[in-house]
């Protein structure tokens, strides 16, 4: 177990945690943009403003979805692979 948590593995875990934090921040931004879009529609803001907010919100939502799913799949895979590498070296 001590060998499993070597500096390389710790660096991988820290990097992964950092990616999760970035994804969460972007998700919060996406939700905030949806509220801004709703506000623009209710207050009859210019159409270009509402459209830009809508496009940006959808674009961020897609990027968030891809990054979150990818990280959720890749991080366990990399940890598992590292574990097997360590087991192989042992």
């Amino acid at each position, binding site marked *: 177990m001590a060998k499993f948590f070597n500096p390389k593995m710790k660096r991988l875990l820290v990097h992964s945690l950092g990616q999760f934090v970035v994804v969460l921040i972007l998700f919060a931004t996406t939700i905030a943009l949806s509220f801004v879009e709703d506000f623009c529609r209710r207050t009859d803001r210019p159409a270009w403003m509402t459209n830009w907010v809508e496009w940006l919100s959808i674009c961020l939502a897609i990027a968030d979805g891809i*990054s979150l799913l990818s990280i959720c799949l890749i991080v366990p895979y990399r940890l598992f692979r590292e574990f*097997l590498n360590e087991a*192989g070296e042992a």
Partner: protein
Amino acid sequence: MAPQEPTAVLVGENQEFSQIWLIAILVAIVSTPVVVFCKQSVPWLITVPIWIGVLLVLLAEFKHWNRLRLKKPKLFTGVTFLVVALHLSLPGYATRKGIIKRFSRSVPEEVSEAVSFWRGHPASVQARLNRRIAWIQQDFTEDPLSILDTMDRGLFSWATRTTSSRNKIHFVIPSTNHFAILTNLSRPLEGGAVDWNLSDNPPDPVISALLENALTLKQVALRASQQISQVNLSWDFLLPFADMFSQPERLVAAASNNPLAPTTKELSAFWDSTAKILSQAQLMRLLGSARSGPRGLFLCSLVDPQSGGSVLVLFHTAWKPRAGLALFEGTFVGFNPEEWQTEVEIVMPPYAWDIEKAWSRLK
């Protein structure tokens, strides 16, 4: 000197997450226009670029697969095969044994429904229509006059028999395939002939004026929703869902987000009946209202006692009819168009709105 372990180098290379973000942003930028333009008709389309992006990321991740030199590859391969086999076999086994109950609606069912919709399957059309009505209901609850955004517009005129004054009516055609009229009952007729301009002509000044009126209505509705002090009318009862899809072709057209324009025959029939009732209307009755200080939104019924015909009028105003408080007691009072000081009204046939529910709420 000891040889360097190849596995250590490979794991270090793959620890970079920048390729995930690069792929995610590129796929998002490329697919956003398609998702935006198909948002109403294919709402689940946003999941497609997400899964495509995930697939690309996984392919980029596994491109180093062959470069891995594990000392015990059989172990890794065996565990991977076991995980994949369990993943493929367990859901089917659990479903057969009743361990997992299937969801009532799954993604494949949604997809098959959407595919069958484009093939014109009646059940799918009905399901799609129900969703669309639910959206309209939600929008209408949040902003009662959002229904104006879905309307096509035109104009016609008529003469009031009791006062011999001529009036001009802007009629609107909701996407729900019912007719209503956006009008000003107190404004004198500027032209003389009946104008049948539909909104395919954007520079039409009438349409521009109507759009301004619609914007005014929306602003009034917004102010009313923010500082409303008295609400007698439940806005969700103003939804035009009463018998509105009785005709199969209109049902299909409305569900496909491409409502049919009314035929000349339909429009003429509506114009004849509504203009006749408006010209002979002598009684009016307040069905409900939402008031905020001096301003308010009202729903009235105008009745021609001779023919028994009636129309509904939805309007906002700083309105002070001679009838006064008697109108707010729910009784019929005399109707004189010259008393109307409203800015904009929406006139519609009684069947355009679910009036039965409105009555049940008011009683």
